[in-house]
């Protein structure tokens, strides 16, 4: 038993930094997109009668300038659904992506800009989000990141923390998720996974040791495209926690959450 202690400690340590790592993952994952060099600015020509330039990226901000047909604009950067453009006079403003999508490049082709919609949802590559719910009749919280490597299959990494009356726990789970109807707005899925769970008895109870166990899980759920990048996620998972005791723990988990894709 004593020989296992360092390994146990390592697992415990790993679980302690897991939320921080997940937060970092949340923040760093999409930063790998290439930033464009300054001298490689993209030009675009207005072919609609005009496009509206706003003072700030938002639909409520005033239109202060109109770029007319035939005018060429530089595309500088994008924030949410707004693209910052500069015209030849040096006037800068924010244009909605759908309007930018109706301008043309030097070959006369429309630019592939548009606000994310149901079609982008069905072709998403990454998704992340968080869920709240019930793990074995305790409050539970999950953050997750998913990568779609085919249209039907995705790999997911989730961190779950639950808070019970007698113990709380942290859990890292890796899963393979299969969605049967990738084109549907209401897209059901099945999942199978494995992971590690650390259980910490409450400090107000008599002294008991933290324990770390492996888990296996199966689940089912549905993702629903709400609007733009946002989706709602409902899921059920059944966990088997492989304890050192005679019986394994079997746990039901229900979750509801909000996610976004990119």
């Amino acid at each position, binding site marked *: 038993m004593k020989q296992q202690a360092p390994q146990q400690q390592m697992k415990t340590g790993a679980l302690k930094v897991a939320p921080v790592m997940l937060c970092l993952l949340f923040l760093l994952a999409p930063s790998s997109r290439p930033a464009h060099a300054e001298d490689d600015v993209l030009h675009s020509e207005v072919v609609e009668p005009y496009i509206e330039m706003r003072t700030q990226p938002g639909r409520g901000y005033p239109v202060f300038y109109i770029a007319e047909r035939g005018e060429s604009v530089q595309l500088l950067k994008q924030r949410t659904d707004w693209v910052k453009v500069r015209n030849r006079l040096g006037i800068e403003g924010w244009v909605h992506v759908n309007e930018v999508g109706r301008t043309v490049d030097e070959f006369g082709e429309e630019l592939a800009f548009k606000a994310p919609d149901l079609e982008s949802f069905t072709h998403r590559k990454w998704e992340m989000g968080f869920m*709240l719910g019930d793990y074995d009749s305790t409050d539970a919280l999950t953050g997750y990141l998913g990568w779609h490597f085919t249209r039907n299959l995705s790999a997911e990494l989730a961190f779950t923390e639950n808070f019970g009356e007698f113990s709380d726990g942290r859990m890292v789970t890796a899963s393979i998720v299969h969605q049967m109807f990738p084109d549907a707005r209401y897209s059901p899925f099945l999942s199978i996974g494995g992971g590690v769970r650390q259980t910490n008895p409450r400090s107000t109870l008599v002294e008991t040791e933290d324990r770390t166990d492996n888990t296996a899980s199966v689940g089912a759920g549905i993702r629903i495209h709400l609007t733009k990048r946002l989706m709602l996620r409902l899921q059920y998972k059944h966990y088997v926690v492989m304890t050192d005791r005679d019986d394994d723990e079997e746990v039901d988990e229900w979750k509801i959450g909000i996610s976004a894709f990119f």
Partner: protein
Amino acid sequence: MENWHKRILLGAAIATAGVFVTGVSVAQDSDAQQVISPDIERREISRPAIDTEDFELGGYVGLLSIQDFDSEVVYGVRGAWHITEDFFFEASYGSSEGDLTSYEELSGGAPLFDDADRDYSFYNLGVGWNALPGEIYILDKYALKSDLYLFAGAGSTDFLDDSWFTVTVGAGYRLLLNDWISWRLDVRDHIFDRDVFGADETTNNIEVSTGITFFF
């Protein structure tokens, strides 16, 4: 009479066959002509790579009022993903330290908790809504974007040697100094049920903070 009849029928048969054969040969001819098709190269239309700045990352410092304990300095980091112009996902991590409880200070007796247990740290994940987007004007020259937003989230608080499920609600103000640097003010209430003093009690831990964040 019979011959005349036969001749007409034969003629009709030959004419039909002739039309059929010509039809087929014409169809074959047009197939042959289509082999020479206009030589147009299909170009793949891809989304031009321009810099997207939907992520916000930064640090903050503030005051955290821990219920039954003192108000203490809190430090934290905060990152957000702006999903639409209205909504963003945000993750925060902060840490502080609880001082003596009011009871410990007044009674002057032995402390109730180890110093190590007084470390207060928390994280939360949630959704922010830019409820009141705006623009403020400085002198004649500058117009800066601002957002007044509401936030709701959930997370965990590590305090007094236990973890507590924590709901966080709040409001904040973000002022963009330029396209990518923002100054923020936040007021948040971290609510959790605690039973360290025996009975379960709901505690409100108010955090007031200010920070700088960067969009990338």
